[in-house]
């Protein structure tokens, strides 16, 4: 497996690891094929993400994807469209190999599910 320097860097120093207590949005998604699990919690104020934390049981790409996802999310709005796409995750990581793009899909899924959870809590 060949990873970009960015993946290595995030793997080595993952940002925003952990769980937000009393979050505004939460999700846990998994990929049964490879066993990767991603847990994402968001703090959302005035429809804008102010805090994001993740935990994963996954390969280095999954860890890097979680890390970069939280970084990118902070400051973004949660309107109609999803605040983050798998393409952005992939690109921010310097390009994942075909065997590893699924980790960016997992990240996007987690973001969508956490935002959905937020909207549901808002009673929308």
């Amino acid at each position, binding site marked *: 497996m060949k990873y970009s320097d960015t993946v290595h860097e995030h*793997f080595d120093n993952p940002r925003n690891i952990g769980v937000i207590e009393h979050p505004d949005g939460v999700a846990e998604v998994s990929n049964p094929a*490879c*066993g*990767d699990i991603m847990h994402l919690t968001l703090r959302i104020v005035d429809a804008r993400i102010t805090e994001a934390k993740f*935990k*994963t*049981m996954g390969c*280095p790409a999954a860890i890097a994807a979680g890390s970069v996802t939280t970084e990118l999310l902070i400051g973004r709005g949660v309107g109609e469209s999803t605040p983050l796409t798998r393409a952005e995750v992939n690109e921010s990581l310097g390009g994942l190999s075909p*065997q590893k793009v*699924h980790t960016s899909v997992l990240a996007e899924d987690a973001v969508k599910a956490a935002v959905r959870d937020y909207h549901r809590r808002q009673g929308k």
Partner: protein
Amino acid sequence: MRYIYLDHNATTPVLPKVLEAMLPYQCEAFGNPSSVHHYGRRARVAVDDARDSVAEVLGAPASSVIFSSGGTEANNTIIKGVAQARREHGRHLVTSQIEHPAVLDACAALERQGYAVTYVPVDERGLVDPQAVRDSLTDQTILVSIMVANNEVGTLQPIADIARLVRERGVLMHTDAVQAFGKVSLAVEDLGVDFLSFSGHKIYAPKGIGGWYERSPAVLQPLLHGGHQERGRRSGTENVPGIAALGKACAIAAGDMTAEEERQRQLQQRFEHGIRERIGEVRIQGEKAPRLPSTTNVAFGGAEGEALMMSLDLQGVAISTGSACSSGSLEPSHVLRAMRVPRPYLHGALRFSLGRATTADDIAYVLDILPGIVAQARGV
């Protein structure tokens, strides 16, 4: 940083003495063994001498040893070559679920050509049952191929028992001995096999050399046709430096095989004991089975193998998750699945493989850093 290489099942460094044995044949005695002049004759002598050394490790006549480019070529030649030569006798082969891809994929290629292949299962210890092999034989069966030692978990199969049952039925028996050759005693007469493959780069000879044993008279269509080298069994200009190196590596292996096996056995016990003492939720594959002393496959529940491997790499420790050959794929290892490793462990397996250079100090160092790395991976 301190570098510790614990991936000897993937490949080994060339030993200085082995390098020394091959160097003369690169720039100086560089002739083609097919040439009649003195450059050629000197190369021919090197090839003949090396063949003797290899044959000695196998307790076989020198004429039964054929050199190839490695274990993959040997396995492909034997499996496809017997299938081709015996196709009028039948089109059924038997192998196991835990073979190396060089055997499994060669079998799959034959399946695409209309052959049938039975993949015998293993038990949870990673062992093939000789009776299951026997029961799978039909009057169409032309070849059985079962490995001596598994590359991922190190389990040693009961080859002599299997071969006896197979040859009783008049079926040819092959064993992929790539991981066992030069590490444990392998006399072909005791094993009772018709074919046996080996590879240089697993025993401190360079990459690009290997070969096979074949009982004579051999039934085998060659895979490489051409200049009739290796008595027509494997054409192509001989890799003389590689062959000389393999000869030397065999001589070294034969020289201290029991002592080195015992030394590694001690380290393995210390290592596995240490893991159990320091880390919870671990599972050592094939723990109760006869195993290579070099190989410890251990899975950490709730952690992901590749992340563990990369954390170790960052601290200078080189190991592997599944087999080096199939890493880079998403699937959990076919060997661990065949052994029915439970789901929580399936993605958290590491293979530590020891070698000649491994010291008790190396083991202690890994035991020091491993608990923290596992905890971190479980915690992310």
